[in-house]
């Protein structure tokens, strides 16, 4: 009896409120995204064939792409933070995104005629190898210095990123490298974003393993005590993260900070129980990236600013606020 009472009290509290808020906000954003664009969407009275086609071929895929990439990157960040036991890691502060780009660049150069599928495999394998290397690197860092971990990751990512830029410069592929590292959705049309459903599948797998990620986040000893195969969970997590990153880099380009900012916002109100927070993390990630895209479309209409740029500016501000308000809380 007490159990039920406790539960319902908690569900009526902040988290439930957030869910009720997130629903309409998301719906509003989706409508805004469907209605915003250079081509005129003539909706007075009836749906013309042209308008429906515009919606189905361009606006809807673009909206879905923003939602899927935002949701999956936020979840990837949550998993990485759990496994690294550090709140500041995400695909772009651990070298994952840069390694995916490196793999993609090498396969483009060496096997230019390979299919998208092969490219995808190489990019995610490279992301996985890079992230595994990062995990090995941070094991040697003192646990008392939490900021050392993302700093190491950023340095590692920058080194790999420089290699990518150098090779791209030498081989005249700079334009590609730029597209991979700056996420934007203007090129998304039907037929060019469907790989992102792979990220959607990774989200489902992440949810299935949610409890195991939380336990792994409590450390190796607790994991062993509870009978968990720690290494296996670690690898599953890294696999999910590198898949999501590779899918994002290939289709729309990397969106920095999503995996950092979103989990940290959600954690403040809902804590770290992965199974409980994952739906809200995904929802918030999708909504924020979609909002960035809509703002990017409107701010210099009819020109566009990449969603990654908008999110980068807003995300930095949010992150600084999180950082300083946490210090204030402690002090």
């Amino acid at each position, binding site marked *: 009896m007490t159990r039920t009472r406790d539960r319902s009290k908690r569900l009526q509290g902040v988290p439930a409120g957030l869910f009720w808020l997130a629903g309409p906000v998301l719906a509003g954003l989706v409508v805004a995204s469907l209605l915003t664009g250079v081509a005129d969407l003539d909706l007075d009275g009836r749906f013309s064939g042209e308008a429906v086609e515009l919606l189905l071929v361009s606006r809807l895929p673009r909206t879905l792409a923003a939602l899927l990439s935002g949701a999956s990157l936020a979840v990837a960040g949550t998993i990485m933070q759990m496994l690294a036991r550090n709140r500041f890691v995400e695909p772009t502060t651990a070298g994952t995104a840069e390694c995916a780009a490196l793999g993609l660049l090498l396969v483009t150069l060496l096997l230019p005629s390979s299919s998208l599928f092969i490219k995808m495999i190489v990019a995610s394998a490279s992301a996985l190898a890079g992230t595994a290397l990062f995990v090995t690197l941070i094991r040697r860092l003192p646990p008392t210095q939490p900021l050392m971990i993302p700093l190491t990751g950023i340095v590692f990512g920058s080194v790999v990123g420089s290699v990518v830029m150098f090779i791209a410069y030498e081989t005249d592929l700079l334009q590609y490298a730029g597209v991979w590292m700056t996420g934007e959705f203007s090129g998304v049309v039907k037929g060019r974003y469907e790989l992102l459903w792979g990220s959607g599948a990774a989200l489902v797998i992440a949810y299935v393993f949610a409890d195991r990620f939380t336990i792994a986040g409590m450390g190796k*000893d607790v994991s062993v005590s509870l009978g968990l195969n720690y290494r296996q969970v670690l690898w599953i997590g890294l696999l999910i993260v590198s898949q999501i990153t590779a899918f994002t880099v290939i289709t729309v380009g990397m969106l920095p900070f999503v995996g950092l900012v979103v989990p940290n916002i959600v954690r403040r109100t809902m804590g770290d129980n992965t199974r409980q927070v994952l739906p809200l993390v995904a929802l918030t990630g999708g909504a924020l990236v979609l909002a960035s895209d809509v703002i990017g479309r409107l701010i210099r209409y009819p020109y566009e600013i990449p969603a990654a740029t908008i999110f980068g500016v807003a995300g930095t501000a949010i992150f600084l606020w999180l950082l300083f308000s946490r210090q204030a809380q402690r002090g």
Partner: protein
Amino acid sequence: MIEIDNVSFRHGVAPVLQDVTLLLPKGGLTALVGPNGAGKSTLFSLMARLLKLQSGEIRFDGMDVATTTSMELARKIAILRQDTHVTARLTVRDLIGFGRFPHHRGRPGPDDEEMIEKGLELFELSGLSERYIDELSGGQRQRALVAMAYVQDTDYLLLDEPLNNLDMHFARTLMKQLRYLADRYGKTIVVVLHDINYAAAYADRIVALKDGRLSAQGTPEEIMTADCLGALFDMEIVIETVRGRRIALHHAG
């Protein structure tokens, strides 16, 4: 029954444990004592499968820790390390709930909920159940971790220096609760302890390690002698009997 059979362990070339053979019968509370560097924590880690055995065997009710699956052992043995530091922001209830994971593997049922309620009640955490563990004091967090091991509902409970962060009040309460678990539920509890007087007051058996070898084992009455403790810790220790209890006066002299 816990069978520790010819266990040796070395860190690099330095031997930490040498030919330790030990039989612990089922039921009761056993304290593992000894000076720093005696190998207590290493023996604990080997029993808890946190370290891989190099030579020898360890069995719980015939289940070999080297060959039994970790999930199966998780329903047989619950462990708590002294330096367990949970950084994840979880509520006390959720943390304790994860102790049920070996039983439900992600799908908690009514038995699990019932066990969690029992754990909250037994360790006086009901009022704190919705608080996040990073908002608790060290002692409260320690109690939550012990409660988590308790709800794992295993025959064996291994704790490595559980009194470390606790003040006198909670240290005594925790030892009483462990005693209760042994008496009421017939659990077999092994505790690594620093303070010989706590060991004498609450344990059924004391096992003493020194320089990686088994130095002495027996009831508190057998171990709590000036000769035995003096040899174990290489210092002169006076034993006094106060209100029927043997007390080692080790802190001054």
